[in-house]
């Protein structure tokens, strides 16, 4: 995978670049808005990571420009501006995801993986399957090893998201944003409670656990 980082803070940029390299991807770096736009439009990338406040040209303008040129490369905005209205502005400009600085690298990586993956599987599925766990989106039925599992609606939505991103690490914030669709900071780790209940239903009594905790990052559903 090729990833372009448009970021004027060299420390942050090299930190991201090194991390991406360790994860087995290629990363290019542009230190100002104009170079970034030039690279983004002339080279082929799988994901763009764009800072908002950049010299020469700000991040939102870059996103708007490449979207106007019908370039649909997934964009993740990485910014210190983190209020709800900033986020809305970013997404309106055409970005696919928005991460606020300071950030945990695991959070960034999980979101990048999600964006990379989305390019592959956008086909509308009616049935999701991970190992012997099956989820039917039409009948809203979940089975494991042909045994029907009784899930509440919120557990169904949570599992659906995890199955759509199986094999990928998803963070707690991602789950709050994507499954519950709210941007807020819970005072306690409520997501952990939801996950442990879901785990109790899909893993308990089966030999092989599917829902794993990734220390310091989040969760992954994996065969």
């Amino acid at each position, binding site marked *: 995978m090729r990833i372009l980082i448009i970021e004027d803070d060299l420390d942050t940029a090299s930190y991201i670049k090194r991390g991406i390299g360790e994860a087995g991807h290629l990363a290019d770096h542009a230190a100002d808005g104009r170079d970034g736009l030039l690279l983004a439009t002339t080279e082929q990338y799988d994901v763009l990571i764009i800072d908002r406040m950049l010299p020469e040209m700000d991040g939102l303008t870059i996103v708007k420009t490449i979207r106007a040129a019908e370039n649909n490369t997934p964009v993740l905005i990485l910014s210190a501006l*983190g*209020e*709800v*209205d900033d986020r*809305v502005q970013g997404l309106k400009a055409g970005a696919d995801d928005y991460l606020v600085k*300071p950030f*945990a690298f695991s959070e960034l990586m999980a979101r990048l993986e999600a964006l990379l993956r989305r390019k592959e599987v956008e086909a509308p599925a009616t049935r999701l399957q991970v190992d012997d766990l099956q989820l039917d989106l039409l009948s809203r039925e979940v089975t494991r090893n042909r045994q029907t599992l009784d899930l509440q609606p*919120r557990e169904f939505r949570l599992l659906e998201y995890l199955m759509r991103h199986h094999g990928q690490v998803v963070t707690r914030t991602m789950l709050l944003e994507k499954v*519950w669709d*709210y*941007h*807020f*900071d*819970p*005072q*306690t780790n*409520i997501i952990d*409670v*939801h996950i442990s*209940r879901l785990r109790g239903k899909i893993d308990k009594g089966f030999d092989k656990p599917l829902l794993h905790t990734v*220390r*310091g990052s989040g969760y992954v559903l994996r065969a």
Partner: protein
Amino acid sequence: MEGLRWLLASSTFRLALVYMALFMVSVLVLLVFIYWSTAASIERQADETIEAEIRGLAERYDSDGLTGLSTQIADRLRRQQPGDSSIYLLANQRYVPLVGNLSGWPVQKADQEGWLDFQLGDDISGKVHIARARVFKVRGNYHLLVGRNMSELARTGQGIVTTLIWGSLIMFAFALLGSVMMNRSVVRRIDTINRASKEIMTGNLSKRIPSRDSGDEFDQLSENLNHMLDQIELLMDGVRRVSDNIAHDLRTPLSRLRQRLEAARAGNDDDEQRLELIDQALQEADGLLKTFNALLRIARIESDTLQATFSAVDLGDLLRDVVDLYEPVAEEKSQVIEISGDVSVIVNGDRDLLFQALANLCDNAIKYSPESSTLRVDLNKTALRLCDKGPGIPEPEHDKVLQRFYRSDASRSTAGSGLGLSLVKAVAALHRMDIKFSNTDPGLCVTLSFGKLKGS
């Protein structure tokens, strides 16, 4: 000299001077106009009298000739009262006076119609008067001059000039006195305000501007300034308290973070243990970041600039989503959350912030309520009410728990940043909602009332 400079520097005094100058110019214009119209009328009168006398003399000349004319002139002069201003002179062809009360023919030339203005020496007083006359020739090359002494006109003019000078002097004196007095009363009031401001600027924030209770503009100004100062003092206190609290409350997690990093560095070669310590340090750092984010968020919300993102939000939907999210947590403690009241209440607001506020309240309710208790949420058109079965908050602490980092004694042992309710308060204030606590023994009810928001 110092006093004069001080007077000139005062805007009230300068204003008074400008008014005075304007007033004096208008009086001057008025007097000039009066002089001009009076002079015109006196001159017209003189001309008419001269014409009439000439007509009389001409008639006499026509009937009795030169001798009759001379007799008539002599006659008139004889009958003249002192102060009478008629002037007559009959002279021969070489301008040698024959009869009349002028010692010699005037040197000035007459205009085409024979009118002439000339100076007249008064033999008795030595004064010089202005005179006006008409001259013409009579048959036999004799010259006749009939005129009037115009000293009356000069007197009128003199009177007006005198009036002007004295009037100006008196006016100037009064205006000066008036503006100095006005200036002193105004300046004294302003000076009071200035002195108080200076004292406040040097750091005495509790100083207030004295007021006379007369309700005039100066008192209103003083009152407004005092209100402003109250507000500033309140805010300053708030800022001071908050920064104290931040410094105090962040020191503990920071020193824990430091201890863990130190332990990880100095520790033995047990990789497992070292990883554990680093994880703990990371957690501590995340917690700190979270606290800072919450602080920034509260500050941002309180700055009141977020209203642009307001849209119609259904509090009913929001409430059900919050309960949906927190129900499993409650169930862990065998608690039940009951929702009653209206299903849909639309308010104008920020969806995420309102969710955050409700989530914080819900989180608290679950945290402080005992196991197997029931939490009740009631929503109606004007208020949202959440009641728990916890220990409640003592009445005197109701305001304090909304302050940043305040932890009541009852909550000190539980986990939390002390910012949850501050955030709720900031969100409520942004939405013009009122937040109230009431104890139900056992339990606490939090009421968010938004009557003012309804229907918007």
